């Protein structure tokens, strides 16, 4: 089994509307946007709902459970797996699959949320086989 080499991700650069998202990541939470009027969830979270003109947006934590919607292992450099994970709440989120056998990844595989420290220390949400 070939373990994922440690790839330290570059740090995200928050903007004024995402400071809460990245603070929550430091507390081990992956936040989704939820429309208080309609209940619809979106990702990445933003202060204005992408679906409906009505309703304030609140931020709610994901369970952190999901399945791989699709993925690709980049071979041109130190291998790493980029993926979209479908959360059990619905939204499909871009991420990396880490601490895994890159050759054994498959669509539909169950994964769970983990956090990986980026270059500047900010934890970034990623997933690993459940």
């Amino acid at each position, binding site marked *: 089994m070939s373990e994922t080499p440690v*790839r330290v*991700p*570059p*740090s*995200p*650069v*928050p*903007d004024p509307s*995402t400071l809460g998202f990245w603070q929550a990541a430091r507390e081990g939470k992956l936040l*989704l*946007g939820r429309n208080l009027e309609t209940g619809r*969830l*979106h*990702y*990445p979270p*933003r202060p204005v*709902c*992408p*679906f409906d003109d009505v309703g304030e947006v609140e931020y709610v934590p994901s369970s952190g459970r999901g399945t791989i*919607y*699709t*993925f*690709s*292992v*980049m*071979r*041109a*450099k130190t291998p*790493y797996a*980029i*993926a*979209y994970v479908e959360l059990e709440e*619905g*939204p*499909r*989120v*871009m*991420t*990396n699959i880490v601490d895994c056998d890159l050759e054994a990844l498959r*669509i*539909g595989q169950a994964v769970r949320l983990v956090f990986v420290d*980026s270059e500047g220390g900010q934890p*970034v949400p*990623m997933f690993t086989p459940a």
Partner: protein
Amino acid sequence: MSLRGVACIAGAYEHPTRKAENKSTAQLHAEVAIGALRDAGLTRADVDGYFCAGDAPGMGPLSMADYLGLNRLRHVDSTDIGGSSYLLHVAHAAEAIALGRCDVALITLAGRPRSEGVATGTAPRAGSPAQPDVQFEYPYGAAVANLYAMCAMRHRHEFGTTAEQLAWIKVAASHHAQHNEHAMLRKVVTVEEVVNSPLVADPLHRLDCCVISDGGGALVVTRPEIARGLKRPVVTLRGAGEAVKHQMGGQLDLTYTGARFSGARAFEEAGVTPADIKYASIYDSFTITVLLQLEDLGFCEKGQGGRFVADGNLISGVGRLPFNTDGGGLCNNHPANRGGMTKVIEAVRQLRGEAHPAVQVPNCDLALAHGTGGTIGTRHGSATLVLERE
């Protein structure tokens, strides 16, 4: 109001360079501008509309009009939807001409990523922090190749599309490129060579990817009355469509592209169906790009793209749908990492009967050109043109 018949492509020019170490990007824009105007039998003094996109240096039409010496402009448009911008520009030029906003529109594209050593496909790009998606994508190593690869992976999962089927797209392009003296990759390749080339990003191999090249191209769009007075075959816009597709707040579906919408709009306006098309220029940043777009444009059912492209079906003189007879982005060139301009240019060559004799489609009177810009793995623009020979 319909765009059908309101404008013609009177001039088209593709820069012969594939590596322009000693030329500036602005210079390449100027050289293709002159080339397209000369092809049409017009001059810069005739140009009153100018179109460019993000590859144009400086402040788009301002910097370029100054550099090019365009002094009669009364309409400009720098809409940027990546590599598909130039197909959209043809449609927007037709709109402007129909409204009387300009008579002779010039569209230019040029760039030199090869000379600048840009690792186009495999290097994640940081972008601007103000771009709202960057902080949710850059940390994950999102690059062009692995974003398209994720679409191929999902397509394989849902429809059983094989690496060999995708490889046929490259094989067809290489059959065409062998006749193009300017093409970067002129060697005819086999399915085995494609699938045995190194993996770049699963499941895409090196030969599933387009080339990285310098170069450029330009188009001249004008009203039919002017086009008919020029000494060139008349190529008329019959229908056009554009669309934007994105992640939809987390409800993304990577099994289709915006071509589903832009194509339907273009076919409806043109009053024709995919079965009527004699030649198709299909954006080919990767083999999977072609496969998805062929399905979405309606050349085959969703999920059947793999079967459709296999066994040489895209090879001129062999298959049912000759595509990218210049060798396309997969073998010929991909100037400025934006392949939309050359898609239109080869369609114009086919309609004029000026493609290489070995790949010219007999009696080619109806063609389609389609572009995708951005990345289908996140957000992209789609633009479709249906063109006819008068």
